[in-house]
């Protein structure tokens, strides 16, 4: 495009009184400001939360019922003790895995495949704001389901609820780790179907490796369990059912979640940047 004004070429008279900030000749046009990280993040978060409210509430019910159902099934097999704690903690974190990992991977996969990312890519918004806003919204959307599952589980297996406040740390940190993973999978998968598949597999892994008591697992499966970030959320929550929880190890578990969250969200941001400009 060249900088020849329309008036100069077509001889049209400029509107006398109206300001015409963009039509002056000479010099590059001033750039509009960028959106800053935090306000943009807040805007994306709010928009995503509202779309999740409209479209995802039935899915949250499914996630919660699934977890509660698993606990009821396991009630017949497990009789309290360490195993019961693992079942309740695993089922609670499963809600986070369902929404943050599985649904977010699907969402980003679909957005990428349909060209919806163009909308964000043509706005002056930091990539981190889009990824963190969406991940944050999906993670916070899991909060009610996770809390309900933990409380129902505690009642079902007669576990103390004194330290359930630890969910305040478990949900955002496990949420960050799993949502980051979900977003990265959704944005990196070459095809939408693969993104969906990866999300589903991740959730199944969180289910099997999180809910089943770890003591009886064969060694390779136990290693796989250690590799899954949701495991550390499960462990942290399971510890809180002790009469005197080992807070140091709980903090260490949550620290792993936080670290995975940082790395996976950074990877997701990178993947977003790559997917947005081709």
């Amino acid at each position, binding site marked *: 495009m060249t*900088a020849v004004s329309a008036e100069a070429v077509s001889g049209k008279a400029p509107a006398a009184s109206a300001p015409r*900030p963009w039509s002056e000749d000479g010099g590059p046009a001033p750039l509009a400001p960028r959106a800053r990280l935090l306000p943009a993040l807040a805007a994306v978060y709010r928009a995503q939360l509202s779309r999740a409210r409209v479209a995802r509430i039935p899915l949250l019910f499914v996630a919660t019922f699934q977890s509660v159902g698993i606990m009821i099934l396991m009630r017949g097999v497990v009789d309290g003790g360490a195993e019961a704690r693992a079942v309740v903690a695993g089922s609670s974190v499963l809600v986070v895995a369902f929404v943050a990992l599985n649904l977010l991977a699907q969402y980003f996969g679909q957005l990428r495949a349909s060209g919806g990312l163009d909308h964000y890519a043509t706005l002056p918004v930091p990539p981190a704001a889009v990824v963190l806003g969406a991940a944050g919204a999906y993670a916070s959307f899991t909060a009610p389901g996770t809390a309900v599952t933990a409380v129902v589980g505690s009642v079902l297996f007669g576990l103390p609820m004194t330290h359930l406040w630890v969910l305040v740390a478990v949900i955002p940190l496990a949420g960050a780790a799993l949502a980051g993973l979900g977003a990265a999978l959704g944005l990196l998968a070459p095809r939408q179907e693969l993104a969906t598949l990866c999300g589903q597999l991740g959730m199944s892994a969180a289910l099997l490796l999180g809910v089943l008591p770890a003591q009886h697992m064969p060694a390779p499966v136990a290693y796989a369990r250690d590799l899954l970030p949701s495991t550390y959320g499960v462990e942290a929550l399971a510890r809180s059912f002790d009469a005197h929880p080992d807070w140091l190890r709980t903090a260490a578990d949550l620290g792993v979640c936080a670290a995975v969250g940082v790395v996976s969200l950074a990877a997701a941001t990178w993947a977003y940047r790559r997917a947005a400009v081709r």
Partner: protein
Amino acid sequence: MRGLVKTYPPARSRRGEPAAAPVRASDGIDLDVRRGEIFGLLGPNGAGKTTLVRQLTGLLRPDEGRVELLGHDLVRHPERASRLVGYLGQESTALDELTVALAAETTGRLRGLDLRTARAERDAVLDELGLTPLAGRPLKKLSGGQRRLACFAAALVGDRPLLVLDEPTTGMDPVARRAVWAAVDRRRAERGATVLLVTHNVIEAETVLDRVAVLERGRIIACDTPAGLKELVGDDVRVDLVWRDAPPLDVPEVAALRESAQETGRRWSLRLGPAEARAAVAAVTGGPAFAALDDFTLATPSLEDVYLALGGREKGLMKG
């Protein structure tokens, strides 16, 4: 834009099939759009309009060539496009599950507006486009045309000196179309905004555009005002003849017309000089040919004729 080239790599072939040739979607495009102009890109599907627009909005990097936008080098600084361009793409998936109001407000916020300004602009734009009654409805629940209008509203929140609109009026009713063109005109008149419009609707192109570039297979085959383009085909007249079933080829005048006619089923389309057209109409409306004639129309040339006269090979242009 100078010497713009974008080649898509060939689609990966399956085993046993020959590889497809690479597609040059922009094949050395040179284009100057003046500030304050409503400029159109016209062409059939697959002509490379969207590819061209995506290079202008920083979504695609050209393989070669230069894109200069209001004094900014976009090949070197593609990220600047988002601070200069309001873009309406063809997809609405990013906004589909939001309400009309939230879609517009969020887009404004992501264009760097603070909350109060974003809300004020949202209200102004929804009001301008007559969308206020739909403000609380999710885009997904709206009809195609209304959804398109809501996306257009989102594209307008947060002033930009250049609006790039990819088929903005697809699916819209006449009221919504008029609202779109009024909003576009207002931004040009009041703020000197430049508008780049992608369309394959020739009627729309004739009525709203200052200048138009006709694209085919990644090349610009003509670029002028709509009137200037029509002069290319001179005072030719288009004659459309529709036969009841078989054309009466035993009539010598009809047989002679067949050579210059483009046949689609029972319809013949001819582009003729005024005298020839008069003769042709006289021949088919009198005598034995008239019995075989179902309908005929005479029309002054449209951009579609220009396109065909320029050697447009694809026939994807929509009329109306």
